[in-house]
Protein backbone atom coordinates (compact mmCIF):
# COMPACT_ATOMS: atom_id res chain seq x y z
CA UNK A 1 0.00 0.00 0.00
CA UNK A 2 1.28 3.45 -0.78
CA UNK A 3 1.20 6.01 2.00
CA UNK A 4 -1.93 8.18 1.79
CA UNK A 5 -0.19 11.15 3.38
CA UNK A 6 3.46 11.22 2.40
CA UNK A 7 5.73 13.27 4.62
CA UNK A 8 6.24 16.79 3.26
CA UNK A 9 9.56 17.14 1.48
CA UNK A 10 12.29 18.87 3.49
CA UNK A 11 13.92 22.01 2.10
CA UNK A 12 17.18 20.14 1.68
CA UNK A 13 15.56 17.31 -0.26
CA UNK A 14 13.74 19.81 -2.48
CA UNK A 15 16.93 21.69 -3.29
CA UNK A 16 18.77 18.46 -4.07
CA UNK A 17 15.95 17.27 -6.33
CA UNK A 18 15.75 20.59 -8.20
CA UNK A 19 19.55 20.75 -8.56
CA UNK A 20 19.58 17.24 -9.96
CA UNK A 21 16.78 18.02 -12.42
CA UNK A 22 18.48 21.23 -13.59
CA UNK A 23 21.82 19.47 -14.07
CA UNK A 24 20.16 16.73 -16.15
CA UNK A 25 18.08 19.21 -18.17
CA UNK A 26 20.90 21.65 -18.95
CA UNK A 27 23.25 18.72 -19.61
CA UNK A 28 20.85 17.39 -22.22
CA UNK A 29 20.40 20.84 -23.79
CA UNK A 30 24.09 21.71 -23.91
CA UNK A 31 25.28 18.17 -24.49
CA UNK A 32 27.88 18.30 -21.73
CA UNK A 33 28.13 17.57 -18.02
CA UNK A 34 26.65 20.35 -15.88
CA UNK A 35 27.10 21.00 -12.16
CA UNK A 36 24.65 23.21 -10.25
CA UNK A 37 26.27 25.44 -7.63
CA UNK A 38 25.38 28.27 -5.27
CA UNK A 39 21.62 27.64 -5.19
CA UNK A 40 19.58 30.34 -3.44
CA UNK A 41 15.81 30.01 -3.14
CA UNK A 42 14.29 33.47 -3.30
CA UNK A 43 10.68 32.52 -2.68
CA UNK A 44 10.74 29.28 -0.73
CA UNK A 45 7.30 28.05 0.21
CA UNK A 46 5.50 30.34 -2.20
CA UNK A 47 3.23 28.91 -4.85
CA UNK A 48 6.05 29.03 -7.35
CA UNK A 49 9.69 28.36 -6.67
CA UNK A 50 12.36 30.81 -7.79
CA UNK A 51 15.92 29.59 -7.50
CA UNK A 52 19.11 31.43 -8.37
CA UNK A 53 22.02 29.19 -9.30
CA UNK A 54 25.24 28.86 -11.27
CA UNK A 55 25.41 26.26 -14.02
CA UNK A 56 29.00 25.09 -14.37
CA UNK A 57 29.89 23.12 -17.50
CA UNK A 58 32.61 20.47 -17.83
CA UNK A 59 35.02 23.04 -19.34
CA UNK A 60 34.66 25.16 -16.20
CA UNK A 61 32.42 27.89 -17.68
CA UNK A 62 30.01 29.34 -15.15
CA UNK A 63 26.66 30.83 -16.10
CA UNK A 64 24.49 32.69 -13.56
CA UNK A 65 20.86 31.65 -14.12
CA UNK A 66 17.45 31.59 -12.47
CA UNK A 67 14.75 28.95 -12.66
CA UNK A 68 11.07 29.57 -12.01
CA UNK A 69 9.15 26.34 -11.49
CA UNK A 70 5.87 25.00 -10.26
CA UNK A 71 6.03 22.15 -7.77
CA UNK A 72 3.21 20.29 -9.58
CA UNK A 73 1.30 20.53 -12.82
CA UNK A 74 -2.04 21.76 -11.64
CA UNK A 75 -1.56 25.22 -10.13
CA UNK A 76 -0.56 27.27 -13.13
CA UNK A 77 -2.23 30.64 -13.54
CA UNK A 78 -0.79 30.86 -17.04
CA UNK A 79 0.74 28.08 -19.07
CA UNK A 80 4.50 28.26 -18.55
CA UNK A 81 5.24 28.18 -22.28
CA UNK A 82 2.83 31.09 -22.79
CA UNK A 83 4.54 33.02 -20.01
CA UNK A 84 8.00 32.34 -21.47
CA UNK A 85 6.77 33.41 -24.91
CA UNK A 86 5.27 36.59 -23.45
CA UNK A 87 8.51 37.51 -21.68
CA UNK A 88 10.25 37.15 -25.05
CA UNK A 89 7.65 39.42 -26.68
CA UNK A 90 8.18 42.00 -23.92
CA UNK A 91 11.95 41.78 -24.30
CA UNK A 92 11.77 42.44 -28.05
CA UNK A 93 9.46 45.40 -27.35
CA UNK A 94 12.10 46.93 -25.09
CA UNK A 95 10.75 46.05 -21.64
CA UNK A 96 13.59 45.16 -19.27
CA UNK A 97 13.11 41.45 -18.48
CA UNK A 98 15.40 38.52 -17.75
CA UNK A 99 16.17 36.76 -21.05
CA UNK A 100 14.46 33.35 -21.24
CA UNK A 101 16.76 30.51 -22.31
CA UNK A 102 14.52 27.47 -21.90
CA UNK A 103 10.95 26.59 -20.99
CA UNK A 104 9.50 23.14 -20.49
CA UNK A 105 6.28 21.55 -19.29
CA UNK A 106 7.93 18.17 -18.77
CA UNK A 107 7.57 17.27 -15.05
CA UNK A 108 10.40 14.74 -15.19
CA UNK A 109 13.07 17.44 -14.65
CA UNK A 110 12.11 19.50 -11.59
CA UNK A 111 8.66 18.09 -10.81
CA UNK A 112 6.57 20.60 -12.73
CA UNK A 113 6.67 23.16 -15.54
CA UNK A 114 9.58 25.61 -15.45
CA UNK A 115 11.55 28.19 -17.34
CA UNK A 116 15.17 29.21 -17.04
CA UNK A 117 16.32 32.80 -17.47
CA UNK A 118 19.41 34.91 -17.07
CA UNK A 119 19.98 35.94 -13.50
CA UNK A 120 19.49 39.68 -13.15
CA UNK A 121 21.36 41.02 -10.12
CA UNK A 122 19.57 43.40 -7.80
CA UNK A 123 17.02 43.72 -5.03
CA UNK A 124 13.35 42.64 -5.08
CA UNK A 125 12.16 42.75 -1.45
CA UNK A 126 10.11 45.99 -1.28
CA UNK A 127 11.43 47.62 1.88
CA UNK A 128 15.01 46.74 0.99
CA UNK A 129 14.37 48.06 -2.52
CA UNK A 130 13.23 51.38 -1.05
CA UNK A 131 16.27 51.62 1.24
CA UNK A 132 18.59 50.99 -1.69
CA UNK A 133 16.73 53.47 -3.89
CA UNK A 134 16.98 56.12 -1.16
CA UNK A 135 20.73 55.49 -0.85
CA UNK A 136 21.29 55.54 -4.62
CA UNK A 137 18.89 58.40 -5.39
CA UNK A 138 17.29 56.39 -8.21
CA UNK A 139 13.59 56.90 -7.35
CA UNK A 140 12.77 59.31 -10.17
CA UNK A 141 14.77 57.29 -12.70
CA UNK A 142 12.86 54.14 -11.76
CA UNK A 143 9.49 55.82 -12.16
CA UNK A 144 10.51 57.19 -15.56
CA UNK A 145 11.76 53.73 -16.59
CA UNK A 146 8.48 52.19 -15.43
CA UNK A 147 6.57 54.66 -17.60
CA UNK A 148 8.75 53.71 -20.57
CA UNK A 149 8.37 49.99 -19.85
CA UNK A 150 4.57 50.30 -19.68
CA UNK A 151 4.57 52.25 -22.93
CA UNK A 152 6.74 49.65 -24.68
CA UNK A 153 4.51 46.82 -23.50
CA UNK A 154 1.30 48.60 -24.41
CA UNK A 155 2.60 49.36 -27.93
CA UNK A 156 2.99 45.67 -28.80
CA UNK A 157 0.66 44.88 -31.72
CA UNK A 158 -1.87 42.33 -30.52
CA UNK A 159 -1.02 39.92 -33.32
CA UNK A 160 2.35 39.52 -31.61
CA UNK A 161 0.74 38.52 -28.30
CA UNK A 162 0.81 34.81 -27.43
CA UNK A 163 -2.30 33.16 -28.85
CA UNK A 164 -3.48 32.01 -25.41
CA UNK A 165 -3.35 35.61 -24.16
CA UNK A 166 -5.35 36.94 -27.06
CA UNK A 167 -8.39 35.01 -25.80
CA UNK A 168 -8.40 36.88 -22.49
CA UNK A 169 -9.68 40.19 -23.86
CA UNK A 170 -13.00 41.52 -22.58
CA UNK A 171 -14.88 44.14 -24.60
CA UNK A 172 -14.88 46.53 -21.66
CA UNK A 173 -12.30 45.46 -19.08
CA UNK A 174 -13.59 48.02 -16.55
CA UNK A 175 -17.13 46.66 -16.71
CA UNK A 176 -15.89 43.08 -16.33
CA UNK A 177 -13.64 44.02 -13.40
CA UNK A 178 -16.52 45.80 -11.71
CA UNK A 179 -18.74 42.71 -12.08
CA UNK A 180 -16.04 40.56 -10.45
CA UNK A 181 -15.68 43.12 -7.67
CA UNK A 182 -19.42 43.03 -7.03
CA UNK A 183 -19.13 39.27 -6.46
CA UNK A 184 -16.18 39.84 -4.15
CA UNK A 185 -18.38 42.06 -1.94
CA UNK A 186 -19.66 38.79 -0.44
CA UNK A 187 -16.30 38.52 1.33
CA UNK A 188 -17.30 41.26 3.76
CA UNK A 189 -18.12 39.96 7.22
CA UNK A 190 -20.32 42.86 8.30
CA UNK A 191 -22.19 45.74 6.66
CA UNK A 192 -19.45 48.01 5.27
CA UNK A 193 -20.89 51.25 3.89
CA UNK A 194 -17.46 52.53 2.80
CA UNK A 195 -17.36 49.74 0.22
CA UNK A 196 -20.96 50.52 -0.78
CA UNK A 197 -19.93 54.12 -1.39
CA UNK A 198 -17.04 52.85 -3.48
CA UNK A 199 -19.26 50.53 -5.55
CA UNK A 200 -21.69 53.38 -6.12
CA UNK A 201 -18.89 55.64 -7.36
CA UNK A 202 -17.34 52.95 -9.56
CA UNK A 203 -20.68 52.16 -11.21
CA UNK A 204 -21.47 55.79 -11.84
CA UNK A 205 -18.02 56.64 -13.19
CA UNK A 206 -17.58 53.42 -15.20
CA UNK A 207 -15.36 54.32 -18.16
CA UNK A 208 -16.25 53.20 -21.70
CA UNK A 209 -13.99 50.63 -23.39
CA UNK A 210 -10.44 51.95 -23.80
CA UNK A 211 -9.40 53.29 -27.24
CA UNK A 212 -7.71 49.93 -27.72
CA UNK A 213 -7.01 46.82 -25.69
CA UNK A 214 -3.33 46.14 -25.01
CA UNK A 215 -1.25 43.50 -23.33
CA UNK A 216 -1.23 44.38 -19.64
CA UNK A 217 1.17 42.81 -17.16
CA UNK A 218 -1.40 43.42 -14.41
CA UNK A 219 1.01 43.15 -11.48
CA UNK A 220 3.92 45.52 -12.06
CA UNK A 221 4.65 47.04 -8.66
CA UNK A 222 7.30 47.35 -5.99
CA UNK A 223 7.87 43.67 -5.22
CA UNK A 224 7.69 42.38 -8.79
CA UNK A 225 10.65 44.31 -10.15
CA UNK A 226 14.41 44.00 -9.77
CA UNK A 227 16.16 47.21 -8.85
CA UNK A 228 19.92 47.66 -9.03
CA UNK A 229 22.15 50.64 -8.26
CA UNK A 230 21.32 52.22 -11.62
CA UNK A 231 17.55 51.85 -11.31
CA UNK A 232 15.02 49.48 -12.88
CA UNK A 233 16.77 46.27 -13.95
CA UNK A 234 13.89 43.91 -14.77
CA UNK A 235 10.14 43.33 -14.60
CA UNK A 236 9.20 39.91 -13.17
CA UNK A 237 6.16 37.68 -12.68
CA UNK A 238 4.24 37.75 -15.92
CA UNK A 239 1.79 35.00 -15.02
CA UNK A 240 -1.29 37.18 -14.59
CA UNK A 241 -0.80 39.16 -17.80
CA UNK A 242 -3.83 39.50 -20.08
CA UNK A 243 -5.35 41.82 -22.65
CA UNK A 244 -6.90 44.79 -20.95
CA UNK A 245 -7.14 48.51 -20.32
CA UNK A 246 -3.60 49.97 -20.25
CA UNK A 247 -4.59 52.40 -17.48
CA UNK A 248 -5.26 49.44 -15.18
CA UNK A 249 -1.59 48.57 -15.51
CA UNK A 250 -0.40 52.08 -14.60
CA UNK A 251 -2.80 52.46 -11.70
CA UNK A 252 -1.83 49.26 -9.88
CA UNK A 253 1.70 50.20 -8.71
CA UNK A 254 0.31 53.55 -7.53
CA UNK A 255 -1.87 52.10 -4.77
CA UNK A 256 -0.78 53.17 -1.32
CA UNK A 257 -0.33 49.53 -0.26
CA UNK A 258 2.72 49.27 -2.57
CA UNK A 259 4.50 52.30 -1.11
CA UNK A 260 5.63 50.59 2.08
CA UNK A 261 5.49 53.72 4.20
CA UNK A 262 6.74 56.19 1.54
CA UNK A 263 3.20 57.48 1.21
CA UNK A 264 3.92 60.77 -0.52
CA UNK A 265 5.63 58.96 -3.42
CA UNK A 266 2.67 57.70 -5.35
CA UNK A 267 4.46 55.26 -7.64
CA UNK A 268 5.61 52.38 -5.46
CA UNK A 269 7.22 54.64 -2.87
CA UNK A 270 9.79 55.68 -5.51
CA UNK A 271 8.54 59.09 -6.68
CA UNK A 272 5.43 60.97 -7.79
CA UNK A 273 3.43 60.16 -10.91
CA UNK A 274 4.93 62.94 -13.11
CA UNK A 275 7.83 60.76 -14.26
CA UNK A 276 5.54 57.81 -14.90
CA UNK A 277 3.34 59.93 -17.15
CA UNK A 278 6.32 61.52 -18.89
CA UNK A 279 8.00 58.18 -19.59
CA UNK A 280 4.70 56.74 -20.78
CA UNK A 281 3.99 59.61 -23.16
CA UNK A 282 7.55 59.71 -24.48
CA UNK A 283 7.20 56.02 -25.24
CA UNK A 284 4.09 56.68 -27.28
CA UNK A 285 1.46 55.88 -24.65
CA UNK A 286 -1.65 57.96 -24.03
CA UNK A 287 -2.17 58.73 -20.35
CA UNK A 288 -5.79 59.16 -19.28
CA UNK A 289 -5.96 60.64 -15.77
CA UNK A 290 -9.66 59.90 -15.22
CA UNK A 291 -9.40 56.30 -16.26
CA UNK A 292 -6.20 55.91 -14.21
CA UNK A 293 -8.05 57.22 -11.16
CA UNK A 294 -10.97 54.86 -11.73
CA UNK A 295 -8.62 51.88 -11.74
CA UNK A 296 -6.92 53.09 -8.57
CA UNK A 297 -10.29 53.16 -6.82
CA UNK A 298 -11.09 49.69 -8.12
CA UNK A 299 -7.68 48.34 -7.07
CA UNK A 300 -8.04 49.76 -3.58
CA UNK A 301 -11.49 48.17 -3.24
CA UNK A 302 -10.18 44.85 -4.52
CA UNK A 303 -7.27 44.86 -2.08
CA UNK A 304 -9.59 45.66 0.82
CA UNK A 305 -12.00 42.89 -0.16
CA UNK A 306 -9.03 40.54 -0.50
CA UNK A 307 -8.07 41.28 3.11
CA UNK A 308 -11.68 40.72 4.19
CA UNK A 309 -11.57 37.42 2.31
CA UNK A 310 -8.50 36.36 4.26
CA UNK A 311 -10.27 37.08 7.54
CA UNK A 312 -13.29 35.14 6.30
CA UNK A 313 -11.04 32.22 5.36
CA UNK A 314 -9.56 32.29 8.84
CA UNK A 315 -12.93 32.33 10.58
CA UNK A 316 -14.53 29.61 8.47
CA UNK A 317 -11.47 27.39 8.79
CA UNK A 318 -10.46 27.38 5.11
CA UNK A 319 -6.97 28.57 6.03
CA UNK A 320 -6.81 29.51 9.68
CA UNK A 321 -3.78 31.33 10.93
CA UNK A 322 -2.93 34.46 12.83
CA UNK A 323 -1.79 36.41 9.77
CA UNK A 324 -5.11 35.81 8.01
CA UNK A 325 -6.97 36.78 11.19
CA UNK A 326 -4.98 40.01 11.44
CA UNK A 327 -5.88 40.84 7.83
CA UNK A 328 -9.43 41.52 8.97
CA UNK A 329 -8.18 44.44 11.00
CA UNK A 330 -6.27 45.83 8.02
CA UNK A 331 -9.40 46.38 5.93
CA UNK A 332 -9.81 49.81 7.58
CA UNK A 333 -6.56 50.95 5.94
CA UNK A 334 -8.05 50.31 2.52
CA UNK A 335 -11.31 51.95 3.56
CA UNK A 336 -9.37 55.05 4.49
CA UNK A 337 -7.38 55.02 1.23
CA UNK A 338 -10.62 54.57 -0.67
CA UNK A 339 -12.27 57.51 1.08
CA UNK A 340 -9.22 59.66 0.32
CA UNK A 341 -9.56 58.79 -3.36
CA UNK A 342 -13.29 59.65 -3.25
CA UNK A 343 -12.82 62.91 -1.34
CA UNK A 344 -15.64 65.31 -2.30
CA UNK A 345 -14.61 68.77 -3.49
CA UNK A 346 -13.92 71.14 -0.61
CA UNK A 347 -13.42 68.43 2.00
Amino acid sequence: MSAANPQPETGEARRARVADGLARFLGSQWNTDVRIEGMVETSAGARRGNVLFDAVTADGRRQPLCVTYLPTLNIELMNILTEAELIGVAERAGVPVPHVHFASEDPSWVGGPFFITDRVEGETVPRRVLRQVAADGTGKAIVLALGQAFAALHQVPLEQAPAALAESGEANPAEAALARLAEQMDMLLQPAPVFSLGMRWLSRELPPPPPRLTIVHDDIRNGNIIVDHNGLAAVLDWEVAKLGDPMEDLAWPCLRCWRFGEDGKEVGGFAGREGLIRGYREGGGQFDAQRFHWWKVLGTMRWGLGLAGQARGHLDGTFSNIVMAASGRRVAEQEYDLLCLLRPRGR
Partner: protein
Amino acid sequence: MQDRPDARELLATLGDYLEGELLPALEGPLNYRTRVALNLCRILERETRLGSSYLLRERERLCRLLGLGLEDLLPGSLHDQVEDLNQQLVNELAVEMLPAGFEASAWDTLMATTRDKLAIVRPGYDSYEAREEAP
Protein backbone atom coordinates in the same frame (compact mmCIF):
# COMPACT_ATOMS: atom_id res chain seq x y z
CA MET B 1 -16.01 41.85 39.36
CA GLN B 2 -12.69 40.38 38.36
CA ASP B 3 -9.60 41.17 40.32
CA ARG B 4 -6.85 43.26 38.84
CA PRO B 5 -4.89 43.22 36.62
CA ASP B 6 -7.87 44.20 34.47
CA ALA B 7 -8.21 43.28 30.79
CA ARG B 8 -6.31 46.30 29.54
CA GLU B 9 -3.48 45.76 32.00
CA LEU B 10 -3.23 42.10 31.08
CA LEU B 11 -3.13 42.85 27.37
CA ALA B 12 -0.36 45.37 27.96
CA THR B 13 1.53 42.76 29.97
CA LEU B 14 1.01 40.12 27.31
CA GLY B 15 2.25 42.53 24.65
CA ASP B 16 5.32 43.45 26.66
CA TYR B 17 6.12 39.79 27.17
CA LEU B 18 5.84 39.05 23.44
CA GLU B 19 7.91 42.08 22.54
CA GLY B 20 10.54 41.95 25.24
CA GLU B 21 11.05 38.24 25.91
CA LEU B 22 9.63 36.05 23.16
CA LEU B 23 10.41 37.98 19.96
CA PRO B 24 14.16 38.31 20.54
CA ALA B 25 14.35 34.52 20.84
CA LEU B 26 12.58 33.84 17.52
CA GLU B 27 13.67 33.91 13.90
CA GLY B 28 12.07 33.50 10.49
CA PRO B 29 8.35 32.76 10.13
CA LEU B 30 7.84 32.36 13.89
CA ASN B 31 9.31 35.80 14.47
CA TYR B 32 7.00 37.24 11.82
CA ARG B 33 3.87 35.59 13.18
CA THR B 34 4.74 36.62 16.72
CA ARG B 35 5.11 40.21 15.53
CA VAL B 36 1.61 39.88 14.13
CA ALA B 37 0.43 38.55 17.50
CA LEU B 38 2.11 41.45 19.26
CA ASN B 39 0.39 43.91 16.96
CA LEU B 40 -2.97 42.25 17.71
CA CYS B 41 -2.27 42.62 21.44
CA ARG B 42 -1.64 46.33 21.02
CA ILE B 43 -4.81 46.66 18.94
CA LEU B 44 -6.86 44.94 21.65
CA GLU B 45 -5.30 47.10 24.34
CA ARG B 46 -6.36 50.25 22.47
CA GLU B 47 -9.77 48.75 21.70
CA THR B 48 -10.35 48.02 25.38
CA ARG B 49 -9.53 51.62 26.16
CA LEU B 50 -11.29 53.41 23.27
CA GLY B 51 -13.68 50.93 21.67
CA SER B 52 -16.94 51.73 23.45
CA SER B 53 -16.63 55.50 23.26
CA TYR B 54 -15.85 55.22 19.53
CA LEU B 55 -18.83 52.95 19.04
CA LEU B 56 -21.06 55.53 20.73
CA ARG B 57 -19.72 58.22 18.39
CA GLU B 58 -20.32 55.99 15.39
CA ARG B 59 -23.93 55.45 16.47
CA GLU B 60 -24.44 59.17 16.92
CA ARG B 61 -23.01 60.01 13.48
CA LEU B 62 -25.05 57.33 11.73
CA CYS B 63 -28.25 58.46 13.46
CA ARG B 64 -27.61 62.03 12.37
CA LEU B 65 -26.90 61.01 8.78
CA LEU B 66 -29.95 58.75 8.55
CA GLY B 67 -32.22 61.18 10.39
CA LEU B 68 -32.94 58.78 13.23
CA GLY B 69 -33.31 59.34 16.96
CA LEU B 70 -32.26 56.97 19.73
CA GLU B 71 -35.91 55.99 20.10
CA ASP B 72 -35.85 54.63 16.52
CA LEU B 73 -33.12 52.09 17.28
CA LEU B 74 -33.60 48.40 17.82
CA PRO B 75 -33.45 47.27 21.39
CA GLY B 76 -30.17 45.48 21.85
CA SER B 77 -26.50 46.00 22.49
CA LEU B 78 -24.67 49.07 21.26
CA HIS B 79 -22.71 46.80 18.90
CA ASP B 80 -25.90 45.37 17.36
CA GLN B 81 -27.40 48.82 16.97
CA VAL B 82 -24.34 50.14 15.15
CA GLU B 83 -24.28 47.10 12.91
CA ASP B 84 -27.94 47.64 12.08
CA LEU B 85 -27.37 51.33 11.34
CA ASN B 86 -24.48 50.44 9.04
CA GLN B 87 -26.76 47.99 7.24
CA GLN B 88 -29.35 50.75 6.82
CA LEU B 89 -26.67 52.97 5.30
CA VAL B 90 -25.57 50.16 2.98
CA ASN B 91 -29.19 49.81 1.85
CA GLU B 92 -29.47 53.55 1.39
CA LEU B 93 -26.32 53.70 -0.74
CA ALA B 94 -27.81 51.08 -3.06
CA VAL B 95 -30.77 53.36 -3.88
CA GLU B 96 -30.42 54.87 -7.33
CA MET B 97 -31.57 58.43 -6.60
CA LEU B 98 -30.31 59.97 -3.38
CA PRO B 99 -31.07 63.46 -2.02
CA ALA B 100 -28.53 66.08 -3.11
CA GLY B 101 -25.59 66.19 -0.76
CA PHE B 102 -26.30 62.82 0.84
CA GLU B 103 -23.22 61.15 -0.58
CA ALA B 104 -20.94 63.93 0.61
CA SER B 105 -22.54 63.77 4.08
CA ALA B 106 -22.12 60.00 4.06
CA TRP B 107 -18.46 60.52 3.15
CA ASP B 108 -18.03 62.86 6.16
CA THR B 109 -19.64 60.30 8.47
CA LEU B 110 -17.61 57.40 7.11
CA MET B 111 -14.34 59.32 7.13
CA ALA B 112 -14.80 60.25 10.79
CA THR B 113 -15.61 56.65 11.73
CA THR B 114 -12.76 55.25 9.65
CA ARG B 115 -10.33 57.59 11.39
CA ASP B 116 -11.64 56.29 14.72
CA LYS B 117 -11.17 52.69 13.56
CA LEU B 118 -7.61 53.48 12.50
CA ALA B 119 -6.86 55.08 15.87
CA ILE B 120 -7.32 51.55 17.22
CA VAL B 121 -5.95 49.32 14.46
CA ARG B 122 -3.26 51.53 12.89
CA PRO B 123 -2.59 54.82 14.69
CA GLY B 124 -1.03 57.41 12.41
CA TYR B 125 -2.16 55.83 9.14
CA ASP B 126 -4.49 58.77 8.51
CA SER B 127 -1.76 61.41 8.76
CA TYR B 128 -1.28 60.99 5.00
CA GLU B 129 -4.35 62.42 3.23
CA ALA B 130 -3.53 61.80 -0.45
CA ARG B 131 -4.84 65.22 -1.43
CA GLU B 132 -2.64 65.39 -4.56
CA GLU B 133 -4.06 62.08 -5.75
CA ALA B 134 -7.68 63.09 -6.04
CA PRO B 135 -8.63 64.25 -9.55
